[in-house]
């Protein structure tokens, strides 16, 4: 059981190629981290997997538990078990957070099935408490006027409610103060387990102190160029990305 990304090539519709033959396999029960310089294609990878219409896949496949999801609409991919915590969560005026999450859960039920409102609010409050999100946020419009950190917590809340089988967290740590980071990391760790595979995109080894990854990948120029254990994050933190770029150049010229 895994999310397999095989030889993925993608570009902005009608524009330049951003992902150039990317290979990655995320097994259920494991946490993978991706690090990489700005503009290397990390967010693009997360959006292509989720089906964002700005991008087109020119080659390769993405298999969710063996099923190619690239032909599916973004909502069908999500219902198949995929979740993306956005680097920049979107504001939706006039739609309350509680109604939004409820609609997302309702979308997973069959025709004629109704979500039980009492159970729903019970679950929602429980998860909000874990993430120390005040109750007032149920009635507020989705992400509207939320601080950067509140938006990120709200992403983790949605993940907790939707219980995906594969989750991509795109810089969920950025914009968080130390206390919030601990809370969010605890929230993510609580969701860790054999039923979920996670891909954590981050620039900072700091996050990985709290969410210890099983594997760390480096993404440069639209490809995974290096894979190692959690110690790689420290190496990158200490040395930056240049040494990887140099190694790449050497192996290319060799």
């Amino acid at each position, binding site marked *: 059981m895994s999310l397999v990304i095989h030889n993925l090539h993608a570009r902005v519709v009608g524009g330049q190629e951003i992902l150039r033959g990317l290979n990655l396999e995320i097994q259920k029960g494991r946490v993978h981290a991706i690090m990489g310089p700005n503009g290397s294609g990390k967010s693009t990878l997360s959006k292509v997997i989720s*089906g964002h219409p700005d991008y087109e896949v020119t080659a390769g496949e993405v298999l969710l538990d063996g099923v190619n999801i690239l032909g599916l609409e973004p909502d069908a991919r*999500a*219902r198949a078990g995929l979740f993306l915590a*956005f680097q920049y969560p979107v504001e*939706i005026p*006039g739609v309350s957070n509680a*109604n939004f999450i409820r609609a997302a859960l309702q979308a*997973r039920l069959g025709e004629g099935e109704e979500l039980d409102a009492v159970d729903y609010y019970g679950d929602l409050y429980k998860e909000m408490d874990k993430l120390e999100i005040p109750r007032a946020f149920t009635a507020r419009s989705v992400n509207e006027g939320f601080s950067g950190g509140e938006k990120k917590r709200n992403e983790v809340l*949605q993940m907790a409610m939707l219980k995906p089988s594969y989750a991509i967290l795109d810089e969920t740590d950025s914009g968080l103060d130390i206390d919030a980071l601990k809370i969010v990391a605890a929230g993510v760790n609580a969701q860790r387990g054999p039923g979920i595979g996670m891909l954590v995109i981050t620039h900072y080894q700091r996050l990985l102190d709290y969410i210890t990854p099983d594997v760390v990948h480096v993404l440069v120029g639209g490809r995974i160029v290096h894979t190692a254990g959690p110690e790689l994050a420290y190496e990158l933190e200490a040395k930056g990305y240049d040494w990887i770029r140099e190694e790449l150049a050497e192996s290319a010229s060799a």
Partner: protein
Amino acid sequence: MSDSLLLEAAAIPGTLPEWFRNAQSQAAARFDSLPMPSRRDEFWRFSNLKALDPQDFTPARPVADEVAQELVAQSAGVAAAAGTFVFANDHLISRTNSSALAAQGVLWMPISEALENHAGLVEKYFMRSEPALGSSKHLALHLASVRAGTFLYVPKGVHIEAPLQTFHWLAGSGQAVFPHTLIVAEECSSVTVVDWFKSTGDARNMACGVNDLHVGPNAKVHYISVQDWSRQTVSLNSNVTEVAQGASALHLGLHLGGVFSRSESVSRLNGAGARCEMLAATVADHAQEFDQRTLQEHVSPDTYSDLLYKNALYDQSKTIVSGLIRVEPEAHRTDAYQKVRNLILSPDAEANSLPGLEILADQVKCSHGATTGEIDAEELFYMQARGISARDAYRLITYGFLNEVLERLPEATLRETLQSALRNRLQGH
């Protein structure tokens, strides 16, 4: 002119005061002599005038008893209302109101009863202002034909917590109704009133209504009208809200029904520190046309008005919002805002915005703006990324767009009732 309208007008129940009978016959003559509106007239630019001819309609006949019972059963409206009146085809079919109201000196009764028992009071406020937004002919028709609706008088210092509501039902076909609402709130009083305009079936009918609010010094009035006539109904509605010194008014229209729906709304800030919010949320689909004309008239200094009109347009629907802010020479330090937002959900829909400003005073803060846009692609993707289908996402985003207007209403229970009416209206899209 269809004479039958006037013949029927005499059938208003009770004994009418002389001033009213005179006003009615003068209005009838005025209706006959005034020309039909023309598109050359500034107030009728872009309007579809074909829909407007009252010749096609006769005054509504009472409904059968079984129908009346059924309609009363369907007139729940907002839970815990302080009272509910139900009219069907301009005939009163049910009234319930708490006895506490009368004990506080509140008068709340059918307009016919008020004309009979409180003629002097009604005369002081009944349709006193000159039509300002173009509907002279239809206002004359209303006055000549009115026989149903409610009169509310809230004495000085009385606060009515729960909303008062009136249902106006329209049944049958080719029928015309002339619903009237007159609210007088004396100094330091407060009240919230809801009018529901609804149809049985979807035949072609006509409604020509007036709702006028008089908000006394330091009083507070919230008035909500839910226009949910059948999709074939021609609707004209005219509102004047007079706001006195230190008083505040909130006027909210939820516009859902009708084939052609014209609404005119004037807020006159007549007293230092008067405040008014003018709000409207409109769902337009198929060939529906919503023609909305507004005037924010600042007469006194330190007054405030804030208009937010939002339209969601599907199919071949059309909306017009023509709004004027007028700041009179004495009205220094006025704050006046006007925002029109159109959400276009179909390439065939047409939204027209015609803002206007006339500023004759000093130190005035005014802004007006109209925007027209489509569903935001990132909002859509965000929703889909949570598993919500594109269709549901469209509906939810549209709901949110209009709900921002409803969110301005502080009364939670009432707001939820309107939200569910909005949700129902959007089902199927």
